[in-house]
């Protein structure tokens, strides 16, 4: 029996090394954010600061208006975008899962084809800016990522095909329930696991999205947290110059350029890291679902 097992000690050693490789980069950012600004300039980034300081966080705290504002934009976009996205994808996927649906193959193909071919950034950009004129609106952060592509729809379709017994739908129809009612009252409640999984993936996409903000938004008051971070990378003074961030309490504090960046990165990382242990299982399930043929 023993020969059939890999050496457990070697395995654990390997994975402890992997764990370090995954986490150490985060640790560097984390400890830099607690370093004194002068010490960061002279001693560089270290895993253990020679001089600890809360200066960067103090600064963030005082200029918190713009950060809190960006947080709320991110939160709003994530929640509303995910809810609407999941609703629309499942509504589109359900009829496609019904074997008796007329034109089912045509519509399925139309969904599937969006995964094979797309118009690319230029024409999409022109449609959204010239046709829908969503530039510098909250919709710019939400609409372009709503269904991403046919992918989630196809996952929903597979689930509905496998997980919803035909007899249940048919008997409800015989009892006089309309197809819409069947969908909302019977199909959706039976599909909570897949809704949770796709909702999770969708919300991670929204929370981490900076691309739509980068191309469609120039107004600072619509910046998501990611866009604020992105902007601060190229323009660290941004927090200082934007009128959202100015506060009289800051005038006396020296602007902590390097550590402030890292503190911002920590602030951006924290929500997902804290929530991660709770959703890890669903995430793993969601990622695997995506790889299943369907």
């Amino acid at each position: 029996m023993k020969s059939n097992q890999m050496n457990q000690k070697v395995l654990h050693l390997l994975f402890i090394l992997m764990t370090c490789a995954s986490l150490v980069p985060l640790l560097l950012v984390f400890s830099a954010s607690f370093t004194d600004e002068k010490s960061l300039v002279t001693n560089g980034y270290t895993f253990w600061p020679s001089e600890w300081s809360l200066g960067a966080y103090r600064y963030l705290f005082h200029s918190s208006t713009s950060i809190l504002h960006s947080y709320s934009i991110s939160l709003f976009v994530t929640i509303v975008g995910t809810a609407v996205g999941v609703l629309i994808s499942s509504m589109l996927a359900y009829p496609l899962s019904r074997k008796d649906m007329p034109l089912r193959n045509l519509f399925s193909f139309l969904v599937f084809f969006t995964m094979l071919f797309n118009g690319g950034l230029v024409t999409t950009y022109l449609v959204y800016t010239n046709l829908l004129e969503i530039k510098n609106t909250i919709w710019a952060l939400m609409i372009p990522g709503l269904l991403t592509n046919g992918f989630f729809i196809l996952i929903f379709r597979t689930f509905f095909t496998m997980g919803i017994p035909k007899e249940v739908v048919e008997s409800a129809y015989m009892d006089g329930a309309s197809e819409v009612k069947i969908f909302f009252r019977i199909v959706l409640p039976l599909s909570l696991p897949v809704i949770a999984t796709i909702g999770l993936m969708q919300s991670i996409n929204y929370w981490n999205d900076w691309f739509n903000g980068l191309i469609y938004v120039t107004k600072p008051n619509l910046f998501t947290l990611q866009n604020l971070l992105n902007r601060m990378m190229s323009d660290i003074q941004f927090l200082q110059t934007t009128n959202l961030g100015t506060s009289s309490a800051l005038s006396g504090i020296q602007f902590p350029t390097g550590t402030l960046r890292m503190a911002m990165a920590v602030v951006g990382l924290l929500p997902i890291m804290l929530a991660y242990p709770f959703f890890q299982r669903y995430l793993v399930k969601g990622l695997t679902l995506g790889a299943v043929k369907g």
Partner: protein
Amino acid sequence: MKQHNFRTSLRRLKRYQMLFLLMVPGMAYLIINNYIPMIGILIAFKDYGSATWLFGGDWVGFKNFEFLFKTSDAWVITRNTLLYNGAFIVLNTVLGIAFAIFLNEVRHRFFSRFYQGVILMPFLISMVIVAYIVMAFLNVENGYLNKHILPMLGMETINWYGEPKYWPYILMIVNTWKSIGYGSVLFLAAIIGIDSEYYEAAVLDGATKWQQIRKITIPLIMPTITILTILSVGRIFYSDFGLFYQVPLNSGPLQPTTDVIDTYVYRSLITLGDVGMSSAAGLYQSVVGLVLVLFTNYIVRKKDKDQAIF
């Protein structure tokens, strides 16, 4: 007969109109977000300067493409895109399979789940923050490498964000760090699905671990490997925009080794406002991308029909 078919389908349509209703928002979205831009792709054959919206402008034939392919840009971005994504496909597949097998061997369930969770963590971090992390290591004045590692090795400091030659390695490391957990999750799911009887029989026959991996595990997860490879080869012309835009901090001197089709299209459109050039590059990407998916799927279909995607 035809008449009859038509009438029954009309009756069926009536019963199913509610289901059609459910599809309206989603289909409307796909039309706006996907199909109109697909038609709009024709602007690659137009002089956009004279028009203000998607369907305006004078036809100029292949002029935009001529401009694109006359410069060395087209060659550089194509080469970079193919080499990077090719390397990523190989690295992610090989390492993904290796770590899936290792994870599967960890006997303690708690630990295998814990390890999986940790190596998957970088996958959740947005590229903006990844760029911050990389900068903490590579910053010229006080980054960890220049301040601590290189002096320790007695080497000169390096201007990381100005020297293109290091970036293929940097980007490969960053990409592997970020996506190795994802790959191992996918392959682990396939490995868990393998019937344990195969292994029990192999052990009775005295097969070593290595033989079991080579003769049982790999062949049985081959369908998953094939599908994932088709999907990634089909997308080999598309890059992870964030990796190539955020991580090198959009640095100009790095472009010879960090510019890919996606960053080129973005820069031409947003920074330079050159719709003609960027749409030509975008169309080039979309068409070659489509051909690649169809081609890889065709090859797989020829070898083994069951493993093809469509």
